[in-house]
């Protein structure tokens, strides 16, 4: 039997009909649903007289458009309210489990799937959201879909898919202190570009990836879409099994051993070949900061905003010029000289317990810079509870940071958590597009530790130069409680 990639194994195991080499009907094991991209799908379903085929393989939450300051009063925007109401009604009608606004397990769709254990190796996972790639950290084939496809999955539990090319991104060596999964992601996108992964499924391999925690792998896979790839994944290993053990949707006892054997069998076989391989020296990675309006416009924190003559083509120069104008940055400015007004620690990229801990270790015993308004938005109510049990909320509050309820918040600013025109933000989210965090707002993408450091100093600083306090390891966290 020839050596196969994890992607090929998952693909082969899910083809229901069609031509597996051209266009196949692929079965979906888990369909995650949220309020923003689903209302039109349910309407379409109803208009066609169809019903939801597998509510038991569908899980809904409210995350994009929910308030994060307090939950006792309704969302002020009546249009948003109607959107939340429709999700509730659609789920009730179809029998789809909903972790709604007031549910103890509510959270960002890509945070709650893994923490509940519904995302497992070898599965196909889809969601009407481009950052579905996050679930690939478990060795699942997970990708974002549009609303018409949401409707199709509701109706059929299947999708028409063409096979993707495979791209191996191999991170060699070891990660230096102060460099995180977010920096790997930014480093990779800086190298291959925002279109570098187009048409491909990326598998992250190599010793650096093997040494990453599940939370780090989620951060890395999450950003895969920013390289234009369809999905990103990491072959499952013992780290994956340990993370899943004991989670609500994961079997126990003898079934766990059987499930774990199946999970580990999903990993790419030794000698499996990829269509393309990019090798990156992990020891050369540093903390990165984006300077422009795509995640590929990125430089080391010790670097400078590029000069226009660094762009070989006329089109490249024009794009960079527009980005500099939007970001209100002069060519050649040292990154550490850029001041910030806001700091956002959150989003499906960096809002899990490990992220909040890394930020808290920088913050402990210090105060936010008086100009900076900093907020921490846990990815889920579960993360929030766990962080509070460790006292992280106190560390942030004592430093003058806001401690919020779970949701997407200022990652995309659909709720009142937005940047004002001209405000500059150090953000742990995934997109620095124009206006992403608020019309006229300026976003610099960084890791949680780098965001925390920027909040304390009022400008970007190299987190490797700061003394940080190691917080004790949390007890084995379980989303069951």
């Amino acid at each position, binding site marked *: 039997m020839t050596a196969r990639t994890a992607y090929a194994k998952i693909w082969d195991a899910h083809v229901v009909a069609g031509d597996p080499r051209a266009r196949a009907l692929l079965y979906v094991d888990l369909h995650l649903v949220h309020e923003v991209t689903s209302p039109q799908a349910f309407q379409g379903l109803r208009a066609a007289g169809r019903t939801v085929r597998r509510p*038991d393989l569908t899980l809904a939450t409210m995350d994009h458009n929910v308030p994060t300051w307090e939950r006792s009063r309704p969302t002020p925007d009546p249009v948003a309210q109607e959107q939340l109401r429709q999700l509730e009604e659609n789920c009730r009608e179809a029998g789809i489990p909903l972790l709604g606004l007031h549910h103890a397990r509510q959270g960002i769709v890509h945070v709650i799937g893994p923490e509940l254990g519904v995302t497992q190796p070898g599965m196909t996972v889809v969601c009407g959201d481009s950052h579905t790639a996050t679930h690939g950290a478990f060795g699942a084939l997970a990708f974002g879909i549009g609303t018409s496809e949401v409707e199709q999955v509701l109706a059929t539990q299947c999708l028409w898919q*063409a096979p993707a090319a495979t791209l191996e991104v191999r991170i060699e060596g070891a990660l230096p202190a102060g460099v995180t999964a977010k920096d790997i992601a930014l480093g990779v996108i800086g190298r291959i570009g925002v279109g570098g992964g187009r048409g491909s499924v990326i598998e992250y391999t190599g010793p650096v990836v093997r040494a990453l925690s599940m939370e780090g792998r989620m951060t890395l896979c999450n950003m895969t879409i920013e390289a234009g790839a369809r999905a990103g994944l990491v072959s499952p290993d013992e780290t994956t099994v340990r993370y899943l053990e004991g989670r609500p949707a994961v079997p126990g006892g003898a079934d766990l051993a059987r499930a774990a054997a199946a999970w580990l069998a999903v990993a790419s076989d030794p000698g499996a070949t990829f269509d393309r391989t990019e090798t990156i020296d992990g020891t050369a990675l540093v903390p990165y900061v984006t300077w422009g309006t795509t995640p590929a416009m990125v430089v080391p924190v010790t670097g400078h905003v590029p000069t226009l003559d660094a762009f070989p083509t006329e089109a490249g120069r024009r794009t960079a010029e527009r980005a500099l104008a939007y970001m209100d940055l002069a060519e050649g400015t040292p990154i550490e000289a850029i001041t910030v007004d806001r700091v956002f620690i959150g989003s499906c990229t960096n809002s899990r317990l490990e992220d909040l801990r890394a930020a808290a270790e920088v913050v402990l015993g210090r105060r936010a810079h008086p100009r900076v308004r900093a907020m921490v938005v846990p990815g889920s109510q579960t993360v929030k509870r766990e962080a509070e049990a460790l006292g992280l909320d106190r560390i942030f509050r004592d430093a003058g940071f806001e401690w919020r309820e779970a949701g997407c918040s200022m990652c995309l600013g659909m709720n009142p958590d937005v940047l004002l025109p001209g405000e500059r933000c150090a953000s742990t989210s995934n997109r620095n597009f124009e*206006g992403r965090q608020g019309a*006229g707002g300026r976003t610099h993408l960084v890791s949680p530790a780098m965001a925390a450091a920027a909040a304390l100093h009022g400008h970007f600083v190299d987190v490797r130069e700061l003394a940080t306090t190691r917080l004790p390891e949390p007890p084995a966290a379980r989303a069951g409680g």
Partner: protein
Amino acid sequence: MRPFTEHEGLVAVLPRDDVDTDQIIPKQFLSRTDRDGYGDACFFAWRLDEAGRPRPDFELNHPGFRGASVLVAGRNFGCGSSREHAAWALLDSGLRVVVAPSFGDIFTVNALQNGLLPVALPAEAVRTLVGRGERHDGYRLTVDLGRQEVRDGEGLRVGFTVDPFWRDCLLEGRDPVAMALHHAAAISAHEALRSPLLPVSTGLDT
């Protein structure tokens, strides 16, 4: 599915790379729960200034592009968010075709699902189209899906390929959901063989 066979129309050019779906339709319009009426929201922040006046520096505000149904853009058009609202907004503002050197993967499918045709042409050909479109003299293109070629009145003729699955869907107005339901027996057979150890979502909401 809205069919697409051949289209002839006025060209507008937006020679920017990496136009993301956040620009095509900003988040403040994503709270709505319908599929149409997004035309006014299309390219909102690029099109209008804070006071709601058209920005003179935005390419598509040129009067010569009014009524355009073919958009010619830079590489990686429609990257970023999966919001299908981007395709709805482009259609609602009168577009039927977007020509670019490349497209975001999710955007491509969203566009096709709605009968908006993404046409990927070599960068060189796109540069030629941009040059001709920028003359602002009513430059028009014919996009022929059956023959998979783009033609203009100046002798230009460039071929393109659309995934055969989607080409058939568009030419014949076929519904991908109905096509999937046609395989209901195969879907049930697959379900019967799924491992009982696989997770379910029920019971997690209590």
